[in-house]
């Protein structure tokens, strides 16, 4: 990293640190006093009713949204208006969107090599080698030369995961990765994310898939109306929820 080192603390062991973070949309208080620390290698699942602010929470991590109060430190770098810092953070944080957001005018392979070539300045052949490896890992190597419009939803999302992984991020963010998929394709994507988790990738996953949460998460975070209500390891979270709101939510989704 070049430039001034203000705001960078390589000694900070935590991957992500939220301290007293607030955010408003106009007068709507969407994040209220968020305090959360994610250690390196931790797998966090964030759940909660719609409108609880969970998507906003993770979109603040790579500055797709701006927080107004408090501090967010990602990989030792504090997120402020400093564009250079923001770009540094985005290189190390990968994101997978609910609506995939693959680039329709490029092939799957080109989607994956775009950022490594232009941001990490990799030679094209090395980028393609890396992309091929990762596409094979998510099991869609045979689609590499097709265009996104020609793939099914599940294939597109796996391609999106591979694209994010090609930047060799330290942290992966998943914003409801299976919510736009037909039921029969949810499993193939969840299996991919589970495999990634088992390799020790630091990740935050916003999802409604509670089976996945039980299996993969180190901690589950429940959010409601912009606040973090409860945080716990999966077994105590699901079997002995402590707050009323958590109990209500779990009773509604686990039938």
């Amino acid at each position, binding site marked *: 990293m070049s430039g001034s080192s203000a705001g960078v603390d390589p000694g900070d062991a935590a991957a992500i640190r939220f301290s007293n973070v607030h955010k408003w949309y106009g007068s709507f208080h969407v994040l209220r006093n968020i305090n959360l620390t994610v250690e390196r290698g931790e797998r966090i699942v964030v759940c909660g009713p719609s409108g609880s602010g969970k998507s906003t929470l993770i979109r603040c991590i790579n500055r797709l949204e701006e927080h107004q109060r408090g501090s967010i430190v990602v990989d030792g770098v504090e997120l402020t208006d400093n564009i250079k810092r923001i770009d540094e953070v985005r290189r190390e944080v990968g994101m997978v969107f609910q609506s995939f957001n693959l680039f329709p005018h490029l092939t799957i392979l080109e989607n994956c090599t775009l950022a490594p070539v232009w941001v990490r300045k*990799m030679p094209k*052949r090395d980028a393609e080698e890396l992309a091929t490896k990762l596409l094979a890992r998510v099991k869609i190597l045979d689609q590499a030369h097709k*265009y996104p*419009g020609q793939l099914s939803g599940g294939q597109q999302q796996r391609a999106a995961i591979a694209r994010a992984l090609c930047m060799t991020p330290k942290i992966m963010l998943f914003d409801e990765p299976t919510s736009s998929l037909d039921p029969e394709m949810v499993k193939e994507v969840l299996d991919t994310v589970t495999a990634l988790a088992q390799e020790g990738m630091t990740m935050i996953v916003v999802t409604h898939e509670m089976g996945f949460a039980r299996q993969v998460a180190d901690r589950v975070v429940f959010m409601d109306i912009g606040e973090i209500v409860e945080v716990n390891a999966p077994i105590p979270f699901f079997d002995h929820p402590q707050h009323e709101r958590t109990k209500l939510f779990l009773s509604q989704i686990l039938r």
Partner: protein
Amino acid sequence: MDPASAKRWSWLNDERARGLICQILLLGCIGALACGAIYNAVINMRARGIPTGFGFWNDVAGFDINLHLISYSNLSTYGQAFWVGLLNTLLIAVISIPLATLLGFAIGVARLSPNWLLSRFALVYTSIMRNTPLLLLLLFWYNSVLKALPGPRQSISVGDVVFLNNRGLYLPMPVARESAPWFLGAVLLAAALAIAFRLWAQWRQDRTGTQAPTVLVAAALILGLPALVTAALGAPFVFDIARLSGFNLRGGLQVIPEMAALVFGLVTFTAAFIAEIVRAGVLAVPIGQSEAAGALGLHRGLSMKLVVIPQAMRLITPPLTSQYLNIVKNSSLAVFIGYPDLVQIFAGTVLNQTQAAVQVMAITMAVYLVISLAVAMALNLFNARYTLKGR
């Protein structure tokens, strides 16, 4: 109806038979109308002494044209008048299309600007232009502005090099000197070197990943090489500047007021439509695309260049070419302000003099049709190659 005859007529209900009958009837109607029209036309034309052939093409025209790109005098033929008119129409198109594109893209970008004032100013411009008839704009610029300018002796001058009066706009005309070929050669060489550099930089980026500042190098070459030639061999061009001689300005490149008004009107009018097309195209690219690009670490410039603009251009190109065609068609409004374009000369003066309405209109419309169809075919090829592929 007894079963036997019902069966005989049942083929009438067959869809294919019905379709066939329908088409035969339609062809018959069209044929009858066409025959009737031609029959009446021939009778009427003979009765009024109107020529029915194309012989008028080689008759002497007998009128002057004040702007001709090829040699023309009042002893030239109607055929030659046609070519003069056609070239004048194409001249307007060739000048107006790039200018309208530049202005239109600039205003479109202004419309998209996060600066509220700039975007509102651009909105006011496009709203006014899109809700005013083009003819009114042309008449305004021609009658109220250009014709109201002072005479040659009191010309408005910009730096004593460009002059504006009611006879037209006078620009400096470049006259080539000995070093001109070297200068042009230097420009071409610079362009070729810039392209070569870009190809090499692309190859190097593929192999090693390092990027090169191709735009800067290209600019340096295209500005630098010709400058070196100028320094070594002297100025390649001398500018002939208009000078007052008697009651008129002589010399320089004279742009007649009709042409200035037509180009100015067409450019400002069409730019408003192009601006809206640009804006719609960019806004149609889903916000998720730039978010995904940002999430990958691409900064805003790269995100625009690699992700947003390629997708926006696919959406912008078809309506953009439609506007280009509109410029060609709208240039026919020249007839209202006296600019000698194809319609004004051929479908106007020539038609009035020869009375050969059918032939003249057929030729005129054929010209525009050929242009329209050629552009439509080019656009189809473009679409086939660049449409986003789906399942």
